[in-house]
């Protein structure tokens, strides 16, 4: 299994997927920098990170970036006709799909951490240029808890996206899933409706805004693991062309 994981990481080297995973998290940092340059008073670090950067990331950017990232990961195999080669090797099929899921989940975690890093850099630079350096200290404990809950809660949407990206040869299907899910999440955010609180794309938003985010994180995490098991079983039986 270690070898399969190493191979999956190796495949990302020099790929568009890796480029996306590094560049996309810079966008909230850029927005934070622009915001700090134009503001007329210094904000708190906590409000920048948990009130501005993470909501933008979790509501809109995370699902869109995950959709694009998983699509590119799937297309690495489809464009190279890699399935024919991989599935004809004397390796248990479930290992191949599980390794892809582990790498994609790790990449989405890394992207979220990069978002915070870029946001810190962007806000620091923006504050220095605009003359309003952010106040207070970085809320490490709150950030760590929020990020952990966010990662757990987004597991389900990451697995659904990966499943669509690996199951279908066309890149259209995973993008449609991602865009559709994100639009629903945005509609829910704008209308403040409660009916769709358990929709996978809405869970990250609920984790950031609900008084008790733990049930949403548990639902996304456990639901994601169940879906992961179903995905691995399904793909192991699927005939790839």
């Amino acid at each position, binding site marked *: 299994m270690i*070898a*399969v994981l190493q191979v999956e990481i*190796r495949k990302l080297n*020099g790929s568009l997927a890796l480029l996306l995973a590094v560049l996309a998290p810079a966008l909230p940092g850029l927005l934070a920098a622009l915001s700090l340059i134009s503001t007329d008073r210094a904000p708190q670090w906590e409000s920048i990170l948990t009130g501005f950067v993470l909501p933008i990331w979790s509501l809109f950017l995370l699902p869109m970036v995950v959709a694009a990232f998983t699509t590119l990961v799937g297309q690495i195999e489809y464009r190279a006709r890699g399935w024919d080669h*991989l*599935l004809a*090797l*004397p*390796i248990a099929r479930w290992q191949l799909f599980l390794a892809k899921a582990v790498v994609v989940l790790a990449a989405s975690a890394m992207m979220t951490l990069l978002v915070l890093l870029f946001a810190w850099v962007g806000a620091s630079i923006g504050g220095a240029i605009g003359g309003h350096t952010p106040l207070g200290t970085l809320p490490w404990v709150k950030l760590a808890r929020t990020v952990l809950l966010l990662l757990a809660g987004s597991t389900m949407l990451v697995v659904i996206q990966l499943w669509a990206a690996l199951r279908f040869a066309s890149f259209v299907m995973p993008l449609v899933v991602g865009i559709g899910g994100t639009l629903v999440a945005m509609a829910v955010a704008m209308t403040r409706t409660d009916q769709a609180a358990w929709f996978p794309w809405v869970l990250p938003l609920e984790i950031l805004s609900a008084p008790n985010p733990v049930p949403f994180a548990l639902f996304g995490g456990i639901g994601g693991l169940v879906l992961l098991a179903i995905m691995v079983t399904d793909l192991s039986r699927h*005939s790839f062309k």
Partner: protein
Amino acid sequence: MLAIETEHLTKRYAGRTVVNDVALRVPIGCVYGFLGPNGAGKTTTMRLLLGLLRADAGMIRLVGHDLIQTRRDALAQVGAFVESAPLYDHLTGRANLDITRRLLGLPPGEIDRVLEIVDMRDAARARAGTYSLGMKQRLALARTMLGSPKLLLLDEPTNGLDPDGIIAMRLLIRALPAQIGGTVFVSSHLLTEVEQIADHAGMMRDGRLIVQDEIRVLLGGGAIVAMTIDETEAGAALLRARGMDAHPVDDQTIHVRCQDDALIQQTAMANRILVEADFIVSAVVPHARTLEDVYHDTLAQASSGERLAA
């Protein structure tokens, strides 16, 4: 033990049988040419042999291992590429090989060994996306040889190659059984190409394996003489009426099949019959039997058999 053995191998798509009761017998240590026109079922059969598709019926045994019961043991004996060279264009040639090497748990030196065989040690440092089609095919061939499998399955390995590439690939494939100490199973729609590299052949048509044997045996069964005459239909009919095996090929040529040991006498006899009947015979040329002839003869026999059955 056979390198590949199938029994009643059958695959259906949407009610259409694309591989129909195929019984392959591929001996160990040979180059086996798997022939047939596009759409005959060759690639589907290859995908079945590799476990990439599930058969609707039948058994597959690779180097003595049942593919369904012991998939990993069976595939451990096999190196393959299907349809086109599957490479990750954003990685170097060496990185492409390294991926498979790691998955198979082989030592790093294995990469240099296979690159040496396909003469790509220097080129392997470049990204695969920059390779010509011939280089991609050679690198994919190198990848199939990682771990020294006992059986190589190559699907249309000369597809899209220029003449130099075809010659290079032909030489490589011909040398492979000695190099890997095993069997090479090559699918192709190019009969002349396979005739030059294979010592066994099987021919597919409409999902059925219509013939398979040693090429030496397939090409036996009588020499053919091509005779150029003015009225081919009538001339061939006259020869057949006199007990000879003759049929028109086009509006100028008839083929007369002769016994190997009576070629000269039977050619002279055919010529005499035609001349005495006032046909104008302008050329008599012995024609070496090719796999193309075998293919057409087998198809003709299959068609006449179907007509009789009907």
